[in-house]
């Protein structure tokens, strides 16, 4: 199941929720040149999860859900333009666990 919130996609697979870029966000910010994830693992909905410096804007992205960050797309730190890719395998940001499924279900369908 795929949802959207805070201009990001969230895909649920078992108990892991993968947060990735939407095409609208990619179009709006332009080519990404710098990515920095927050160090904090436990995030609440709307807490910052990463900072992006792109050709058209500098942006802080906010978590669409409360949960625990179990994985970050570290490859995007060394190769930021991956976040401009159309493929979720490349443009994902973080993976969350410990998410309240009801909160996820309430989000807008993608």
């Amino acid at each position, binding site marked *: 199941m795929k949802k959207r919130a805070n*201009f990001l996609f969230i895909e649920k697979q078992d108990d892991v929720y993968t947060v990735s870029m939407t095409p*609208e*966000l990619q*179009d709006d910010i332009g080519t990404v040149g*710098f990515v920095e994830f927050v160090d904090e693992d436990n995030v609440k909905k709307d807490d910052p999860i990463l900072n992006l*410096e792109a050709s*058209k*804007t*500098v942006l*802080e992205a906010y978590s669409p859900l409360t949960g625990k960050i179990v994985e970050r797309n570290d490859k995007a730190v060394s190769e930021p333009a991956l976040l401009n890719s159309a493929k979720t395998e490349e443009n994902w940001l973080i993976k969350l666990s410990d998410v309240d499924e009801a909160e996820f279900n309430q989000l807008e369908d993608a």
Partner: protein
Amino acid sequence: MLNQEDRLDYLIRYLLEEKPNGQELAQSELNSMDEKFELFRGLCNVREAKLVSDEFIETQDAFLTEWNHDRKITRLDDLQPVQSQIYLWKGDITTLAVDAIVNAANSRLLGCTQANHDCIDNIIHTRAGVQLRLACDEIMTEQGRMEAAGKAKLTDSYNLPSSYVIHTVGPFIDERGVSPIKEQLLASCYSSCLKLADEQGLDTIAFCCIATGEFNFPNERAAEIAIQTVKEYLSKYKSKLNVIFNVFSEEDLTIYENLLVNE
């Protein structure tokens, strides 16, 4: 005691001497105060964030204090609210003696670096003094990355009549126009500034028309977002802040009047 022209001469000499090929910029004889002032302003605009002598600061502060106060200064008491806690005022934001004025910054957050550029970031930094760029540089060095759109940072206002400057970076609108993301970023600019002002215990904040200048946000839509965000914030958080919408152009005055007064 030095007069204003003596002070300007000293400041220009100092700024030229610290530049590697500064003397070339000196051009021909500068005769009028206006010409001297424009050179001083341009040199400050392009000056990097680096240490400056105490004597320079002292002379600059004396010059700017007199120059900034040699105009009509406006306080909250001089204005009438158009709605509860909300004021509309047309004029130069650097003449406002209120707790905080909002600066429409860019993501480097160091002030406009284009000599004598006619933007709000330029005039706020010029009239505040070179200390403002140093203060911003300190914030940015500590942060270690560029400033994201929609956030807010507070500094002293140095020689301005206001107490503080709140710096915020608006969304830049390109040829594809306004998008939902950019609308939300503009709303975040307003709510982040209000939140910061409340955290600091301020009474009054004056907003410029964020993102409508160099950043091309359409004026009417920007005003709608500004007013809606401010009203929602004040009621949601029961904030006691007085909010001044500061407009500079006749066009923005009409837009805000239509939205605030004639609704």
